[in-house]
């Protein structure tokens, strides 16, 4: 199943490249390595994504998320909310800034740098966009998208300068973000305790390598008469291709998982509006009934058996988290209360080691 989805997505990508580049008429053969790496990444990402979606908790949220989003009575409101949340959560990273200024800054810079760089490179590599001289004066370019002229600009104009240096701006953003993140990872005690090389450093190193080698290419042809250009071009290609190939497996996969957060927010909205679950012990509301029922089902699919075959409570999930905390302690206390009181009281001294 996952392999089929992976293959189908990759095939779609190939078709999109063929059509978008007008049967490879605008495809730059020098970029074929990048294209194959992208196709591999497409396969890997859609393969892993499909497997991920099949896990019971993810499948449940996926199904329910769409159901509650598309409910006819709330679709309009949901669409408006979706736009707002897309802006606040994805484009502004609001929740990350609340976790800390340096976290927010690092993520925001790296994210926008990568978005900008991807928006430029992928269409160029796939031949979806290319530039032609507008006329015989060779003074202006026309951007051609999917074979259609879109807009023109002077070679020496400000828009021209901005467009042709797009990747430079992108690498400045990424490098600044990576620096902040690296510093936090090196001095922050929280990060130092829990981080892993592959999860936390490798992605930063890769992004940094891609940006720096990209910048060095510009430096080489602009100010050094193309000194070591071939070597740099190969190094840059290796870093980019390496990053693309690693994408489905490492931390960067969160780019594809994270949007699930939006579905969860709509699930929570629907839960708030619906019936609430009341704890069978303290009678307080503690979650939406939909969430509790879904969780019972997910736990059953995972093989957990938190059900009570007899008694008034059918499932442990019907007890609120606070009452669960109290219950475990209560049972331990009961054991003590029912144990015989010993003749010699137990005296304990604090341990001496630290």
């Amino acid at each position, binding site marked *: 199943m996952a392999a089929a989805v992976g293959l189908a997505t990759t095939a779609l990508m190939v078709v999109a490249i063929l059509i978008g580049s007008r049967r490879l008429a605008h495809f730059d053969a020098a970029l074929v390595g990048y294209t194959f790496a992208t196709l591999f990444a497409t396969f890997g990402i859609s393969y892993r994504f499909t497997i991920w979606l099949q896990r019971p908790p993810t499948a449940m949220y996926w199904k329910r998320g769409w159901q509650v989003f598309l409910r006819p009575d709330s679709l309009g409101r949901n669409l408006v909310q979706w736009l707002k949340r897309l802006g606040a959560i994805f484009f502004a990273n609001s929740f990350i800034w609340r976790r800390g200024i340096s976290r927010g800054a690092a993520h925001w810079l790296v994210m926008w740098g990568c978005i900008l760089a991807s928006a430029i490179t992928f269409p160029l590599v796939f031949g979806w966009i290319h530039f032609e001289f507008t006329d015989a004066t060779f003074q202006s370019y026309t951007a051609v998208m999917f074979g259609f002229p879109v807009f023109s600009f002077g070679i020496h104009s400000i828009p021209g300068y901005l467009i042709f240096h797009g990747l430079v701006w992108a690498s400045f953003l990424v490098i600044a973000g990576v620096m902040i993140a690296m510093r936090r990872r090196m001095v922050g005690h929280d990060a130092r305790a829990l981080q892993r090389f592959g999860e936390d450093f490798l992605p930063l190193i890769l992004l940094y390598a891609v940006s720096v080698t990209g910048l060095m290419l510009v430096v080489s042809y602009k100010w050094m008469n193309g000194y070591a250009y071939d070597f740099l071009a190969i190094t840059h290609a290796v870093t980019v291709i390496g990053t693309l190939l690693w994408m489905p497996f490492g931390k960067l996969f969160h780019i594809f998982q994270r949007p699930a957060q939006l579905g969860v927010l709509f699930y929570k909205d629907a839960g708030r509006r619906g019936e609430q679950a009341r704890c069978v012990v303290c009678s307080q509301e503690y979650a939406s009934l939909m969430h509790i029922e879904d969780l019972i089902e997910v736990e059953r699919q995972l093989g957990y*058996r938190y059900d009570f075959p007899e008694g008034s409570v059918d499932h442990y999930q019907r007890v609120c988290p606070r009452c669960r905390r109290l219950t475990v302690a209560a049972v331990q206390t009961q054991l003590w209360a029912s144990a015989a009181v010993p003749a010699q009281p137990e005296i304990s001294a604090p341990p001496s080691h630290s």
Partner: protein
Amino acid sequence: MSVPESLFFFLDPNRCIGCESCVQACSECDTHKGHSMIHLERVNRYESPQTIPVVCMHCDSPTCAEVCPADAIKRTEDGVVQTARKPRCIACSNCVLACPFGVPKMNTDYELMMKCDMCYDRTSEGKRPMCATVCPSQALFFGTHAEIQALRPRSRSLNTFQFGRQTIHTKVQMMVPREAPVMHIDVAAAWHDPQGEDEQDDPMLSAALFELPVLSN
């Protein structure tokens, strides 16, 4: 680095005197600065002084991690179940609602689940978790089996819990009376107490009285 195999976390809720030292110490832990991951519960404020500390039990097959749709919760090789990975957690609260011990906390401001990771920065170096270094009553104790046996000759530790038909084994151990004829702690017992109506038999209350410090000798 990993938590030395000889060291265990022992929990004895009914020794808790409610001093809140653990809560303070926990919030000073570097891995979740300013946020305490300990739930210090007041059992029944009107009838009993009993308080109980609740920390993550670090289950062998952690329900929190299994129900996580985002793969955000990982268990280290030495059995410590870590707090949610920040880039992954989508704040769905599945873990909060599914943990049989009621441990994970949802930080709505950060849109992030946070929970005790047994001070992995410390325990993986053989040091005690923050809470266990300050607990004056040793309701939270980190050390070897020999140490706890010497300190509590009346007790032994259990790490098997029964929730309905589900058995959960944990890395953290709970102290029970040595004579108690149980192989596991069964939560259903709390609800099927035949004398539950009688206040004197309220297990929390009687235990609170039972556990008042005895200072003879």
